[in-house]
């Protein structure tokens, strides 16, 4: 159970990205976060694993409030929270295998990772994850030689190396074409359904939301404007979320 209580975030420039956001996510849910660009979706996801520090509020995971934790303890929680990004965020010049292995960094002794040493189990695990996303044959290529869809699969494999209980996905398919988008979403669905990983995914397209999400939270200017089932989004709700002038497409 992940509870988000009264979380606000104001950036140093004065922009308020999140304004008193509260909701809770039961384990094993596939939650979609929707909203316009700049509505605070990315900030919300990054507040959960504290890549961005919330200015106020609590984020309670299994009874522990993670907001006041010092960096070295936060690390231990962070490794149980996988994350994939819109721009994949692979290390371009490193090999696919190294990128996947770097998902283990939170678990191993930092001194060993300095000399680029991972255990045999980690190597086996990494190859297994790559096989699961179907690109084991690319393990020794440089990450930037792969296509966008392949890169996102590597990113999922990297996140899965953390053995996560929560998977944060920040617009994972926004840079991909519709066919690839579905294949990536299906991986996330598989992780959610087969391994019971809670997935929190921000999305642009409503059809993806209808197809994959158990529940939707919509943000507008940092506030929760909708929290419910995907099927409940009718035209009135749609206009609340995306503004008066918005037209439904697709």
């Amino acid at each position, binding site marked *: 159970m992940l509870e988000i209580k009264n979380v606000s975030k104001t950036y140093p420039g004065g922009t308020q990205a999140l304004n008193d956001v509260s909701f809770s996510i039961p384990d094993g849910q596939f939650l979609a976060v929707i909203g316009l660009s700049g509505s605070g979706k990315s900030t919300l996801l990054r507040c959960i*694993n504290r*890549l961005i520090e919330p200015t106020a509020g609590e984020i309670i995971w299994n009874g522990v409030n993670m907001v006041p934790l*010092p*960096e*070295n303890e936060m*690390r*231990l929680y*962070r*490794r149980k*929270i*996988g*994350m994939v*990004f819109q*721009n*994949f*965020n*692979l*290390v*371009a*010049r*490193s090999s696919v295998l*190294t990128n996947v292995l*770097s*998902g*283990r*960094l*939170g*678990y*191993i*002794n*930092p001194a*060993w*990772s*300095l000399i*680029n*040493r991972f*255990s045999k*189990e980690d190597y086996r695990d990494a190859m297994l994850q790559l096989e699961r996303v179907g690109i084991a044959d690319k393990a020794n290529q440089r990450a930037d030689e792969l296509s966008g869809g392949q890169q996102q699969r590597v*990113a999922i494999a*990297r*996140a899965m*190396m*953390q053995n996560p209980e929560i998977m*944060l996905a920040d617009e994972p398919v926004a840079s991909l074409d519709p066919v690839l988008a579905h294949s990536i979403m299906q991986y996330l669905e598989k992780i959610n359904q087969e391994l019971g990983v809670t997935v929190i995914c921000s999305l642009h397209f409503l059809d993806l939301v209808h197809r994959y999400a158990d529940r939707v939270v919509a943000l507008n200017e940092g506030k929760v404007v909708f929290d419910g089932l995907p099927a409940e989004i009718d035209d009135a709700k749609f206009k609340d979320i995306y503004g008066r002038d918005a037209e439904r497409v697709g």
Partner: protein
Amino acid sequence: MKKEKNSILKSLRVALIIIGLVVFYAIGFSVTKVNLSETKSPTRQTQLVRIIRALFNPDLVTYDKVSTEVKSSVQVPCKEKEIIPIPAEESDGPYLVLSSNCLNAGESVTVEGYNFPPLESQFVQFVPPNGVKLKFAEASTDRDGYFKTEGVIPKNRESDDPQTIQVTTTAYAGNIRPSQTVRDTWNKIVETLFLALLSTTVGCILALPLSFFAAKNLMEKVKSDFISISLTLFLIPIGFYIGIKLASLISGQINRFAMQGWILIVSTILAGAAVYLLIRWLFNRESAADNGNSAKQLLMLAKAALGFLFVSFLYLLANSMMAIGTQLNISLGVFGFLGSFIEDLGEILEMIIPLLLGFSIAFLFSSWGSRLGKHLIKKVAPGTTRILSTLFAIIAYAAIALLLMGILNWLYLFKNPRIYLHYPALIGGAIGLILSLLHKPDEEMKIGNAVYFITRMIFNVLRSIESLVMVIVFVVWVGIGPFAGALALALHTIAALGKMYSEQVENILDGPLEAIQASGANLLQQIVYAVVPQIIPPYISFTLYRWDQNVRTSTVIGFAGGGGIGFLLQQNINLLNYRAASVQMIAIAIVVSLMDYLSGYVRNKIV
């Protein structure tokens, strides 16, 4: 009306600006002592022309010459007006025609020369029977190789034997080859290139780790609570001191055995093998991860043993390198320099082991300090923690103040212990007290920003001192020569590369860094896995650029005694030997443009 007023004001402003600029440049002219009449003075102009001609006539080649002596005999004194026949005209070789062959001392005689090399100075000599060559007359040949001059027969050279008037001419005889200047210049250019290479390498190695401390995007993430910072601040110097002492202890123990020859080398290999095996064992243990208390103690013990073994191994390695180097230096003959290189490397290793150990133990102590601080915050009652925090802060800032004052005391030699002990301790303690009252023990401080600021400041100060100035200090330390130049250039390179590197770190893509951070990696791992792969290409490019720049600088560093080609150039300029100086200038131009081209090519290939 209003508009007009505005335009008047506008033109007035423009006029004022123009007048101001004129005054400004007038001051500039007078300050730089612009003296146009000097440029027109004929003596200066002839000097200028001479230098320019010399510079355009570099002393590049030398060739064999044959000198022939063209003689004509005379009778001094002229006893019987006896006529010695004047040699018949020869059509091809050079010959002399005298107005008379029978002369008395003090009489003048006209000397005409035919078929000499055209447009050259010729020196006419008078040679009495004892063979001494006396200066007689001087002339220049015309286009046809003809000259005519007049000389006076010297006194006190009367003899019964015929005497000689002769001209020595030299002629080109083939076997053209580079001149001595060219060979000297080549040697010095090689020296210059290696000087630049060494200083760039050393600068690059040291700038690499330092650059991370000067990168804002990394350093602003470094935070710690107040109490841990206080603890770390005084534990770091203590750790460093202990490390250096420990190193000298270990090296003393090793030197007591006074191992030599094969025994030394075998024990080095054994120590290396032991280190390797222990690391492997530790790695397997760690991944097995059984968390019993005794197992943990065993691991701790093993790590301590590993540290000790590793330092011993390094000392043994240094000793064997020195021993091997000395041996090779003797036995390799011409390639003895390879031996002395290994010897020097061993010596460098021996010099840096104490520093390495000092830094490692300081690092260890600092991590213990911050762990202790976190433990105190969590487990101890807040009141006690507050008191302890105040106490630690007083000790820490007093220690820092004492350390800083110790450096100043070394520089200025204060004799009064009050100045270098009591006052700084009091002031530092007071600062610590005030800070501890202002900040709660668990308050997060952005300590990284302070590190960033200090590193940047050191880089900027070092960078602003030209290596040409630095070399003066190093010349005093290690003597005139390329070594002083290499040290000065290296120091300057650390600062320059450190700044350039850190700017590259600041320019990396945030995404991968964010992703690695999200996986639970700590800062060190984030640097290794997300920052380093991104900065390798710009680092290589900047290092090459810096080498190129160091070659340029090392061409002038010799002016201040730093060795390299500048040394030769300055010597030749001081000796007014402009033809040789010209060779060196050409060499510099060739090398600099070649380096420029080459580094550009390699940079294009890599990036």
